[in-house]
């Protein structure tokens, strides 16, 4: 049925139920003006299927918890207006994020995502204590600009779900982990930039990226992991002659 702006009409919403084995369950959800996909999922859980498992937190597009696959694309459901995705026939298909183990229904396990974050050494190695003055870092330096371009990542795993190589190669660290590694390689305060570069360019690292750009297409924050990964590739070549990190 078509949705009308005054809030009448119903959406036909297919939702994945189960785990790896399961089925799609279809719900008729009242369509409202300014409705998001998260609103739809919440309506289903409150009025039709209390046992539906899904995640959300902030509902306003800053936490990334509500990421799901909507009509084949990974996105934040709280920032996806139904009118943009449901089409004229008012149909939605909602599935859990790809490339991550399923827990139940729309909830996935992000443990592998964060394990790869650690394997890429995506953690800061401090060089100063609170007793010392702040490190003076020019925001205009090329390295700081490169780092700043990637630090807004909130680990929502949309890029990880969108990446084809993540789906094909279980060793591949993925765009988010490598993007973080790139920000640290460019962070002059980090005490082990060489370690980060080595971790990010090992097997399953930056060289496995084929520059599809799925991550760039889907990142809700507008980050560019492909460019960061290209930067890691360049640095890894310099590292072969010992000049990867200043």
């Amino acid at each position, binding site marked *: 049925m078509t949705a009308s702006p005054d809030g009448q009409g119903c959406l036909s919403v297919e939702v994945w139920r189960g785990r790896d084995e399961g089925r799609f369950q279809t719900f008729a959800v009242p369509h409202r003006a300014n409705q998001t996909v998260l609103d739809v999922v919440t309506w289903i859980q409150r009025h039709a299927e209390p046992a539906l498992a899904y995640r959300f937190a902030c509902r306003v597009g800053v936490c990334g918890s509500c990421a799901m696959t909507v*009509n*084949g*694309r*990974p996105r934040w459901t709280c920032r996806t207006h139904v009118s943009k995705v449901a089409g004229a026939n008012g149909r939605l298909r909602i599935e859990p994020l790809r490339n991550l183990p399923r827990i139940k229904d729309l909830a996935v396990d992000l443990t592998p995502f964060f394990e790869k974050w650690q394997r890429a050494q995506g953690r800061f190695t401090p060089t100063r204590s609170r007793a010392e003055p702040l490190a003076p870092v020019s925001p205009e330096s090329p390295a700081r600009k490169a780092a700043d371009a990637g630090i807004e990542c909130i680990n929502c795993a949309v890029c990880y779900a*969108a990446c*084809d190589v993540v789906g094909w190669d279980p060793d591949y660290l993925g765009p988010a982990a490598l993007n973080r590694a790139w920000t640290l390689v460019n962070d002059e305060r980090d005490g082990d930039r060489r370690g980060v570069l080595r971790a990010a360019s090992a097997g399953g690292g930056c060289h496995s990226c*084929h*520059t*599809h*750009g*799925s991550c*760039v*297409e*889907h990142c809700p924050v507008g980050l*560019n992991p*492909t*460019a960061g990964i*290209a930067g890691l*590739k*360049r640095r890894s070549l310099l590292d072969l002659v010992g000049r990867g990190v200043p």
Partner: protein
Amino acid sequence: MIRPQHNYPGFWAFVAHRVSGVALALFLPLHFLALGLALESDAALDRFLAVADNPVFRVAEWGLVTLLTIHLGAGLRVMALEFLPWRDGRKGLIGLGAIAAVVVGTIFLLRIG
């Protein structure tokens, strides 16, 4: 089978690059073996070329020429994205590569007439 999340130019450029690369890799040993016929005699190579003078072969040759151009174009795009300063998407490169492949393929067809 192609899910909506794959419907954008960067993905298709990759598919073209990978498919053309595999095809060319499979073709290469055959190409070397054919040329190696000249070790026997010029006549041996001529005999092969005479056999190859038929429509099926010509289509295959056209395919290879086109695939080679596609692979070159897609490869240059990847290296531009990796080594040159980033400009948003550089989607224009994909169009250029596709057009170049069509042009080369067409010239080939015209000249084998």
